[in-house]
């Protein structure tokens, strides 16, 4: 009975719980409630993924209205995977949140914080699960608006301008998306994405459709921070509360990439993107520049959080390279990196959150001697850094293996080399931190003795970092699902 309603429960449970957090007022209760909700969401997402892998896509008619008239929730391999990423991040980050939030956000705002977090969570899940283009826009706005609030809660006053910057850029992106959806509705008379995909070939590539494609692409790339539309991201990540940075880094940009994948492959179809627009010529160069430029910029950051933010833009570049190739290997690489990077970067930001809790700063120079004072935290940072570089036995290696292979398959040697150069740049920015933390002595007058972060924060950090190691060794889940999703998107059998 309940099993049949899982798709809608995935959304309704966190959505209903969100206002209760505000009513509970007391931070602890709100935290307990949202932790339970995120855990429940994870269970639902895992069940959905196993159902999809077993018996194919699930369609759920909201309110009993049959698609394409009613809103349809449609779960296939790709978005079931996304649901899992989002809900797992939520479930891992929330236990961590209590101590970190207590430290960084005033007590009176705790209820509001958890409300916004749950709403953001709902919005991201909603974007992933819905099969309706306009509904997707609505959920995107829910997640965006709540994330502006979350970012603005950062301790630093610059968080306000960062949130405002993101608000402006995010709104432009969302507006573009809604314009694109409107144009598509004009051309086809439907909003259901599967239905759109079926009807568009008959309409052909007329000017309306091309304009819609352009608006959707630009709108989505704004949200996912593809170079050169990435300017909102470094500030937003750097000044948001630690928990929010980790949560958004692991989920928000990933969901935006999912939106792009849906638009490109489900609505317009793989041949449209490849032949009518020659996507590869547009996306791949931008993505390569993102990798090279932003990795280089990351090297020169003095704030570690900002450094990781630039690294995120570079990593998004890797995903977009894979997607731009428009081949099974390329898409597999893009999707698998989406997962691997969520685990790695989420873990790294959590580790930084531990540092902020203890020393109140994430300036590179303040990290001197931390290797000795916070051994577990800093070691997790090193492991996460190795995964960013793409050292074997880490998840980052698996992504890069597929990505370079996709480039070689197309005889695109320049891109293959660029990807590896990106890794070398990552060595530099990761090792700057390692050297300061391990080889530079703590400043004079620092009290001796360890200041290791509390277990409630270490365990979530290590779960994510552990995942980024585990999925580099036992790859059947991430690579298996990613290649299934890639074949599904491209309509290749097997």
């Amino acid at each position, binding site marked *: 009975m309940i099993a049949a309603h899982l798709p809608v429960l995935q959304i309704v449970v966190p959505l209903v719980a969100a206002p209760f957090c505000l009513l509970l007022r007391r931070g602890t209760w709100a935290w307990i409630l949202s932790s339970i909700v995120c855990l429940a969401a994870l269970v639902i997402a895992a069940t959905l993924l196993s159902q999809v892998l077993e018996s194919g896509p699930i369609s759920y008619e909201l309110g009993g209205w049959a698609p394409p008239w009613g809103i349809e929730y449609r779960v296939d391999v790709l978005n079931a995977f996304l649901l899992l990423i989002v809900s797992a991040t939520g479930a891992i980050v929330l236990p961590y949140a209590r101590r970190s939030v207590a430290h960084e956000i005033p007590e009176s705002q705790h209820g509001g914080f958890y409300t916004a977090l749950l709403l953001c969570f709902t919005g991201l899940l909603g974007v992933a699960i819905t099969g309706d283009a306009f509904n997707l826009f609505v959920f995107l706005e829910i997640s965006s608006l709540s994330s502006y609030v979350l970012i603005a809660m950062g301790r630093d006053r610059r968080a306000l301008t960062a949130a405002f910057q993101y608000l402006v850029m995010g709104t432009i992106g969302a507006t573009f998306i809604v314009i694109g959806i409107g144009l598509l509705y004009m051309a086809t008379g439907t909003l259901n994405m599967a239905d759109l995909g079926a009807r568009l070939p008959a309409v052909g590539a007329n000017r309306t459709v091309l304009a819609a494609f352009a608006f959707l692409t630009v709108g989505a790339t704004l949200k996912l921070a593809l170079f050169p539309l990435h300017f909102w991201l470094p500030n937003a990540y750097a000044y948001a509360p630690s928990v929010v940075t980790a949560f958004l880094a692991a989920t928000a940009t990933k969901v935006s990439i999912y939106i792009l994948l849906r638009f490109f492959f489900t609505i317009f179809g793989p041949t449209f993107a490849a032949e009518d627009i020659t996507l590869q010529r547009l996306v791949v160069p931008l993505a390569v520049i993102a990798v090279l430029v932003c990795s280089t910029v990351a090297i020169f950051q003095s704030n570690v959080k900002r450094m990781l933010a630039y690294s995120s833009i570079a990593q998004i570049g890797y995903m977009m390279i894979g997607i731009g190739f428009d081949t099974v290997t390329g898409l597999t690489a893009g999707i698998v990196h989406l997962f691997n990077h969520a685990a790695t970067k989420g873990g790294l930001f959590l580790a930084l959150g531990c540092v902020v809790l203890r020393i109140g700063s994430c300036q590179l120079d303040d990290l001197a001697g931390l290797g000795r004072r916070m051994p577990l935290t800093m070691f997790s940072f090193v492991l996460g850094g190795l995964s960013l570089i793409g*050292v074997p036995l880490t998840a980052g290696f698996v992504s890069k293996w597929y990505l*370079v*292979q996709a480039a*070689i398959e197309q005889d695109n040697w320049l891109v293959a*080399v660029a990807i*590896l150069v990106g890794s070398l740049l990552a*060595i530099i920015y990761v*090792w700057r931190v390692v050297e300061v933390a391990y*080889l530079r002595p703590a400043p004079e007058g620092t009290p001796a003795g360890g200041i290791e972060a509390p277990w409630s924060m270490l365990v979530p950090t290590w779960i994510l970092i552990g995942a980024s190691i585990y999925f580099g060794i036992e*790859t059947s889940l991430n690579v298996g699902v990613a290649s299934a999703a890639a074949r599904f998107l491209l309509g290749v059998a097997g």
Partner: protein
Amino acid sequence: MSGDNAILLAILIPLVGAVLIALTGRQPNLREAMTLGTAGLLFIVVLTLVPEVSGGGRPQATLIEMLPGLPLAFEVEPLGMLFGLVASGLWIVNSVYSIGYMRANNEQNQTRFYVCFAIAISSTMGIAFAGNMMTLFVFYEVLTLSTYPLVTHKGNEDAQRGGRTYLGILLSTSIGLQLLAILWTWQVAGTLDFTAGGILSGKASGPVVGILLLLYMYGIGKAALMPLHRWLPAAMVAPTPVSALLHAVAVVKAGVFTVMKVAVYIFGLDLLRDTGHGQWLAYIAAATILIASLVAMTKNNLKARLAYSTISQLGYVVLGAALANDWSVIGGSMQIAMHAMGKITLFFCAGAIYTATHKTEISEMTGLGRVMPFTFGAFLIGALSVIGLPPLGGSWSKWYLMLGAAEASQVVMIAVLMVSSLLNVAYLIPIVARGFFLPAPQSTPQPVSVGAAAAPRPRIQEAPLFCVAPLCMTALGCVLLFFFATPLYRLLEPIVAP
């Protein structure tokens, strides 16, 4: 014990050892017992593999399928057997030496030192027994990373700078070049398994072979082919036991071992010979041999001189691979064992001198031979072995390399080998001569006496027993390797005559 289990045990034992060492960190004696016990056990396990491998067997084991079609798999063949034996055997001796050295010099963070050492040995075993290029690459990178804390052990500015060069060159060559070569091979050949005769023969031809070979040879930065050799002198900031076992045996030999593996099992000797691409590689190797020897002569710091000597000696192995015939490959492979035994002796001596007198510069070692006769005696033996004079092990590898060069009708290479031996004499022997024959500098100028014989004999002042015993053992090993080289030859023979 079956071969499959022994392989996995060989990788697992040092890892378990690392955990035990970490757990017993508070009791130094117990901790050192763990290191020694682990090393002994590992050597026994590796020894159990020998009968099967020399009988023509190829024990295999698969750990896990990392990527579709690319498992972490192991297969012991003669070359890997030899490398595994050398590394695990010398770890025992080196552990004894480490104890003496680290305690006598009151080094900090000894637990971390022993833990990282054990992890490095585990990855060396992984490299030695790897069954495909992917597995080898994985352990190659683990070895780089696990030795970084050892190189930066002192934690000062020098260590930081050395560590940066070390990691920078090794990681960027392996990720930037070697990984690309591996991916390309995978694309071309559809497999990465080490196969007799090579997996690229028949699949690749023309310039592709040349580019791939270039990517591999410079991608394997641990082989220290010039001009990518800078990391090895940089790594000398590490405590001497690290330089001895890792930067004369495990790490650098992992490099040239990989070069051999790639030449024999990825390209195949026929492919290298027929396409003529071995030719330019031979010249690069020859240049490395000669230039590094010349640079070694200019170094006054003993460890720096030994480091450049190592770079030169590694060139021999690459030369053996490049000449690509039966003799040269056997010579090159033997060099892995022979040079290991000789060079570890020399490094042990350098460390013993530092421990006893805190001297690092060769010019300061005047007359020390009379104070430390055992150390300088062992140094002489090690040096003669590295030079390649009988009755020491090093002579055999040079002998077979010469035969290989003759077989390939490369008169130039024969000349290079001979000149190199002379250069070795020129930079190694003066150290011993200075120690034994020059009088020790007097702190206060004394009136000239009638004869030098009138000066009082200096008192013998050796380094601690734990330092001196290992270096005598390895010096003895150099001698034994000369007289008992036949088993080694028999073991290596199947590589070229399958």
